[in-house]
């Protein structure tokens, strides 16, 4: 049940009405039931996996908290091993076996069996790890109520593609839940429409262009040049994932919960470090808190810091999927971050403290960052390594002007959001609509968005959300 499907909105409408009619405790039980129903639409059997993961992490949290000092670490190790083994089995088993087969020269097919990847497993196992580690660090108290814990793990807006929720952010909301304020409701509605526009109008337009390039087919009779194909994927993945997050946050808000932001206009970042502070924030902060810092972070000298960055980013790449292409993408970003650290830490401080900083240099920095990030998407999207190399070779090929003149919508849809971001750089419109605009004005805005979705949405293409596969 995808967020851009009619069935989801029917489901969500029923959930809002039913949960609003229930008292606080009953509504939490209801929320868990709705979440399991939602999850069962993919594969009812996987609800057992989700349920098992919830119960196990709930018990492990209690064990960690109650264990004596000497045993705490042992309990945490069990908790992490449990979550990682779940993830590794379902997501990486085939990949590891095939890779080992190549390395050790044996036929992997004899020990390979077909495993269906449960949707959202990467997200809920990371949430399980975050919870048990936080309990271990005493940042969070172990939850005593299984329903509350099940809400945290299974809450359907974030269940299958995040954002990755942190215990310290979520559990206090369960403790002090207040009636939905007007401004919160308006904000939720705005996020939902913003997300739907991003997904249905933008991502689902760019998706088929990228698909045409990477599958060597024509798009509406036009050959897609490599640069356009790669740019299309860069825009698709942003609008797709940011759109999903907006919808998830909006839905959660209407149900009385708040999710942290996951994107902060990342393609306007002026450097790669800034980009990672604004792209998939819930993952990058998770990697920082639960991988980079435990590895030593930047506490053990420059060389180890650089190494930690590269390790964390490569593993972060692999988190996206069981393929060396994702690892390559992560490694690329690790090296970019390393390069940026060298630039800021060594070169800039030594040679260029007085580098001019004006709109021209800022724009150049933004463009450069966007270009390196976009090039980085090639291994992420390409079906295999050879295809990545081929795409890199083809990047300079011509035909861009011919494609753009035959498909003017591409240019319009690529530049429209940029123009909007520049015109409203402080997000005043969104703030005004949420906080000060009368309800009727918001309703008019929502109706206009719905009409735009009707007229310009890409329907019938069935382009799934990209992050559902992770």
């Amino acid at each position, binding site marked *: 049940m995808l967020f851009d499907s*009619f069935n989801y909105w029917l489901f969500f409408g029923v959930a809002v009405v039913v949960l609003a009619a229930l008292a606080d405790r009953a509504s939490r039980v209801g929320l868990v039931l709705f979440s399991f129903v939602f999850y069962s639409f993919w594969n009812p059997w996987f609800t057992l996996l989700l349920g098992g993961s919830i119960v196990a992490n709930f018990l492990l949290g209690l064990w960690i908290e109650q264990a004596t000092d000497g045993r705490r670490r042992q309990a945490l190790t069990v908790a992490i091993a449990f979550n990682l083994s779940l993830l590794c089995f379902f997501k990486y088993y085939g990949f590891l076996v095939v890779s080992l087969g190549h390395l050790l020269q044996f036929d992997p097919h004899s020990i390979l069996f077909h495993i269906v990847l449960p949707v959202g497993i990467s997200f809920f196992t990371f949430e399980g790890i975050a919870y048990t580690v936080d309990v271990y660090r005493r940042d969070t108290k172990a939850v005593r109520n299984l329903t509350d814990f099940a809400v945290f793990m299974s809450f359907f807006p974030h269940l299958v593609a995040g954002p990755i929720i942190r215990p310290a952010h979520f559990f206090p909301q369960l403790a002090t839940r207040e009636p939905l304020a007007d401004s919160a409701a308006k904000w939720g*509605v705005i996020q939902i429409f913003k997300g739907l526009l991003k997904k249905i109008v933008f991502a689902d337009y760019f998706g088929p262009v990228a698909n045409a390039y990477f599958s060597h087919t024509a798009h509406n009779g036009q050959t897609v040049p490599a640069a356009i194909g790669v740019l299309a994927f860069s825009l698709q993945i942003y609008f797709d994932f940011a759109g999903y997050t907006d919808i998830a946050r909006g839905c959660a808000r209407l149900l009385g919960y708040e999710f942290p932001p996951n994107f902060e206009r990342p393609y306007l970042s002026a450097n790669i470090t800034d980009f990672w502070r604004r792209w998939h924030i819930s993952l990058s902060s998770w990697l920082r808190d639960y991988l980079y810092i435990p590895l030593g972070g930047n506490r053990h000298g420059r060389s180890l810091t650089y190494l930690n960055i590269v390790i964390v980013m490569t593993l972060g790449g692999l988190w996206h999927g069981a393929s060396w292409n994702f690892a390559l993408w992560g490694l690329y970003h690790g090296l970019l971050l390393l390069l940026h650290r060298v630039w800021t830490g060594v070169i800039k401080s030594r040679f260029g403290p007085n580098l001019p900083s004006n709109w021209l240099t800022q724009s150049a920095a933004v463009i450069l960052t966007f270009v390196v990030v976009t090039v980085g998407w090639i291994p992420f999207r390409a079906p295999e390594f050879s295809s990545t190399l081929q795409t890199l070779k083809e990047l300079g090929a011509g035909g861009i002007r011919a494609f753009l003149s035959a498909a003017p919508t591409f240019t319009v849809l690529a530049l429209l959001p940029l123009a909007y971001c520049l015109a409203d750089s402080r997000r005043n419109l969104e703030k005004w609509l949420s906080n000060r605009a009368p309800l009727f004005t918001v309703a*008019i805005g*929502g109706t206009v968005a719905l*009409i735009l979705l*009707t*007229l*310009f949405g890409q329907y019938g293409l069935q382009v799934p959300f990209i992050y559902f596969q992770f």
Partner: protein
Amino acid sequence: MLCIAALYAAFDTLVVRTGFYFRYAEPESIAGSVLLGRTLVDCRMDHSRENIIVLGDSRVGEGFSSKKANEIAKVTKLNFIGCGIPGSTPRVWAYFLRKVDPERTKFSAVVLMTDAVTDTEINEDFVNYKLDLNYCLPLLNWGDLQTFPATFSKPELRDRARRLIAFPLVFAQTDLRALLLHPLDRARKAAQWRSNYATGADDYPGQPTILPDLELEGSPLLPRDWAGIREEIRPQLASYLALSSGYYPRPSVDLATQYRRLWFGQIAREYRAKGIPVFVFLMPRGPYHAKLGCPTALAGSMAALASEGAVRFLPPQPFAALEVPGNFFDQLHLNSVGRTKLTDLLTHTIMEQKL
């Protein structure tokens, strides 16, 4: 959210449900062909006479001339209205008739075509005929939300049908965008088609091309020599020969029976309740049907409907006798010669039945 839904519903009502958009819909589209069919009926309706609608797909458009029929019937009070909506099916005709004649009082008889005397001849799954959704776009309303989707058996088509009724603007999206891009051109084009369509259809003489007699052989059946057959129709002709000779497996006969009973039966039931007869005639099925020895005796759903008195099936043999290449310009449609013959035959047969 409720406020947004209400405002959107108001917009949707204003644009679609009042028929505003359909005044400017692309005439050369599927929905446009249905709307032009409606225009045709409105233009040809003569309230001083007994109006008889002859309804079918493009084969009625090519094979039946209202003008000639009315010349033949000029001594009577009958007024023939030929309405061929290209690609349409009995399900579409049922909704079309409901739209043009909601009270079932406008016509003194309804004449429907069929291209099969037996259900075993049906070679497509019409229960799940996807294009019907596009045809029905201008014909449906909120009241059909339960019943129309239920006429499809595939869940995905039922779902699509529900969405068609709930969000017709989404289904008209491409055309709406084109309309917004060039509103004046579209308004002009739609008005032109509306005002000229009926006259154009009246003056249409039919296609002059004649198919040659062919020697058929092999499996699948193919002409021994393609000489005299236009290049562009050869693939369709080959497909027609394979289908008509039973080379490809046909879909379930039960489904075809249910389908024909449902839609012909529904139209008949609604008109019979007002005492208006519904005639069904065999549209000449193809240029080589006589050669292929296809059945001409009524059987299956049509025989059942006829024996129940729901429809009056016109004797099929004289119509089947027109299934020779000299009367066709391609594998489906009658040419100008066939058009004259069918118009003559159908008009006289109906006159005999009515008078």
